[in-house]
């Protein structure tokens, strides 16, 4: 079996890369260990509406709800509102991730990419150190797929990156361990994504309530693995649901677990090799959101692969176009927000309450973590000391840019 590119994993990053590589003329194969694209869902299913302008999805079947804004609740339940009329533009969707993923896969297939389900990657084909393809297993058949480029899109538990010599192991302080119910029989009066912070509620993370229509919502929790104990995420989520009057009559339609990397990104290219999506740790360390990065990064990866195939040059040097591309698109944001995550971890509930009190009446121009951080810095000069690492990063970044 021989292809130009073999992509391990049919999540959003894998499918978008497949699509743009195929559109650029590459012969693409996607292998997926599961039996259905997008299933089981392992996600809170929130995404920014900025994907609209990328036109990577067709129709509206993948949309469960359009959000008017977001509300962040501090430990004493002081609410900071980021609303659509205040923000004017960028809020979000709650999506059906299974349909969302299948739409992206369908468009990749339409562009000419081939998909194989029930096919697990078991290793890389290497000639000395040179990567030559993927070893795989389809039911009982072991076989080899030769390819000029291998793409690791195998998610948070990525093995392909390790096989290519990139250390993707996460420290417990860089992983959010999550679980979520999809609950029916609840009252979602308005289309707001709600976030609840607090050491007692979700240590090192938050509880979310994302409505999927009038009486259904995803209610989930993410806590930092370094602050977790066996089964703690589920225990805390059950406690939250029990105490919330809106969820009094709730019944579960679905229960799922998830894991979200909240680390700095890793290296993403080697000769004949690219790493994308959660496998590349392309997740916002504050929100845990990664879908937009999968789409944006996948497009850059696919286009870079197209160029590599045309020029028949699969070196790290050429594939570096992808690494530079994602660093420009969202890499700096991830690095900056990683610093903010570390700062926030140091803050106690009292500080969060104090910040929320001072922000609760502000009209935010944009719904972004940066906007929030700027306001905090303006209103709490004493907290500026804590924000010093951020200023250092900005300085370093400006120097890098001027070079």
């Amino acid at each position, binding site marked *: 079996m021989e292809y130009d590119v073999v992509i391990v994993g049919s999540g959003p990053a894998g499918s978008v890369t497949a699509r743009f590589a195929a559109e650029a003329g590459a012969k693409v194969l996607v292998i997926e260990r599961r039996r259905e694209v997008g299933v089981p869902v392992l996600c809170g299913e929130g995404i920014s509406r900025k994907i609209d302008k990328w036109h990577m999805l067709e129709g509206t079947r993948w949309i469960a709800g359009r959000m008017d804004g977001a509300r962040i609740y501090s430990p004493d339940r002081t609410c900071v509102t980021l609303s659509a009329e205040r923000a004017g533009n960028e809020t979000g969707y709650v999506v059906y991730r299974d349909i969302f993923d299948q739409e992206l896969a369908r468009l990749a297939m339409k562009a000419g990419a081939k998909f194989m389900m029930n096919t697990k990657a078991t290793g890389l084909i290497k000639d000395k150190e040179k990567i030559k393809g993927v070893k795989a297993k389809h039911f009982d058949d072991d076989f080899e797929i030769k390819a000029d480029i291998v793409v690791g899109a195998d998610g948070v*538990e990525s093995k392909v990156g390790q096989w290519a010599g990139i250390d993707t192991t996460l420290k417990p302080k860089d992983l959010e*361990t999550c679980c979520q119910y999809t609950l029916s029989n609840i009252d979602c009066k308005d289309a707001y994504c709600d976030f609840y912070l607090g050491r007692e509620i979700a240590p090192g993370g938050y509880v979310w309530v994302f409505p999927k229509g009038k009486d259904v919502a995803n209610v989930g929790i993410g806590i930092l693995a370094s602050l977790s104990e066996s089964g703690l995420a589920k225990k805390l989520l059950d406690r939250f649901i029990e105490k919330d009057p809106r969820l009094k009559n709730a019944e579960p339609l679905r229960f799922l677990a998830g894991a979200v990397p909240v680390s700095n990104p890793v290296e993403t290219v080697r000769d004949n090799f690219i790493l994308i999506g959660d496998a590349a740790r392309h997740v916002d360390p504050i929100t845990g959101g990664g879908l937009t990065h999968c789409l944006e990064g996948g497009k850059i990866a696919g286009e870079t692969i197209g160029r590599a195939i045309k020029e028949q040059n699969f070196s790290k040097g050429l594939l570096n176009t992808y690494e530079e591309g994602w660093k420009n698109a969202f890499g700096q944001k991830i690095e900056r927000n990683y610093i903010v995550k570390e700062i926030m971890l140091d803050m106690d509930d009292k500080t969060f309450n104090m910040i929320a009190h001072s922000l609760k009446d502000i009209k935010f121009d944009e719904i972004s973590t940066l906007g929030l951080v700027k306001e905090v810095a303006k209103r709490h000069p004493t907290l500026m000391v804590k924000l010093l690492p951020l200023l250092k990063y900005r300085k370093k970044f400006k120097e890098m840019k001027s070079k």
Partner: protein
Amino acid sequence: MAKPKAKVDETKCLACGGCISVCPQDALSMCGGKAYVTANKCISCAICIKTCPVGAIGEEGC
């Protein structure tokens, strides 16, 4: 006596992959849609046990 190794309860595992990503010894992998511990790589550090959101990993023999 050696410390007990980690063991996945397949009836509880929801295949989120969190334990695999934090294992410092690469001792965990996905096998048949569930997390699986390769016992001879496990160093009994219990990071995976603490990480599991639903308490699906325990010590062997428990």
